[in-house]
């Protein structure tokens, strides 16, 4: 567990979470949510849970981003609030 690496990942994690919540374009929001998933995957891998990191990369960052994009294409592109 490397402390400096941890801090960098966690800072980017918070930034990605805030941006994906605040951005108006829903397509970019779901893309940034994919980045959030990959950062969590890095965090798992760095803590030694490689199996969980693999699952997170495949499910959290890969498929859920695609499913969200598929949903965005069937609704409005812009968020109203």
């Amino acid at each position: 567990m490397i402390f400096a690496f941890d801090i960098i990942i966690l800072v980017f994690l918070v930034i990605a979470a805030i941006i994906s919540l605040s951005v108006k374009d829903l397509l970019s929001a779901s893309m940034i949510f994919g980045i959030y998933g990959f950062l969590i995957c890095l965090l798992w891998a760095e803590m030694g849970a490689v199996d969980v990191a693999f699952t997170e990369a495949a499910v959290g960052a890969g498929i859920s981003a695609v499913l969200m994009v598929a949903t965005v294409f069937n609704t409005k592109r812009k968020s109203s609030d």
Partner: protein
Amino acid sequence: MRLPNMFAIIAVVITGGILLYGVSDFPSFGDPKSPANAAVPGSESVSQYFITKSYKDTKVPNLVTSVLADYRGYDTMFETVVIFAAGMAIFAILGSVGGGSQPRVQEEGPSFVDGDHSRIIVGTTCRLLVPVIQVFALYVIGHGHYSPGGGFQGGVILAASFIIIALSSDLDAALRRLSEVNYLRLACVGILIYAGFGVLCQVLESNFLDYGVLQPILLTDGPEMARSHSMLGVEIGVAFTVTAIMFAIYANLSSRGTLRDGL
């Protein structure tokens, strides 16, 4: 407009504070005295047992898979059932919302227009990429008990290859390869494989999912290798269900349950 925002912020701050307060009670990372690692007086510690005995019990080098598919096999079986149920729920909801509507009219005419080079580039790249992805997915499934991976991850990667086909051309191209009836069959077959291993153990007069007794059927060297091979079997079952359900969710979401056109 300001007021609900204030309430939301207060709620978030309170919830976050409670969560942080709860985290402070956790044992620190890798603490040998934490409840999961330390032995209770009179019995052996759980993680000590898995680390020292799991290879002897199951001949599976990847400890995570041996815990997931053997010691906690019952748990994993119902995780697969949960994924199956989630897929069925999405199928039912989207099917009832969009199923009755008219098929969408194709607006832009034929999808393959002469001179549309970006389409050709994307299509060719994906055609070259899909076999590589599928072989890697099969490797992840089959190698799950030697290296990180297994049914869930491999199934998702396999489903991603079908989704790439749907994204690069259209949903019909993907549905020609894995049709609606076939992915529903595949999802059911996956769970039946997993439960079948359990029932087979019961037929041979042992506990549900106690793979050791399958040794005479699998013709292995000993009950340990029977456990290893049965784990591969149930991982394949998990992979079937996950592939089918992930592709089903995508196909239904992208076409509003009508299974036509897609994105």
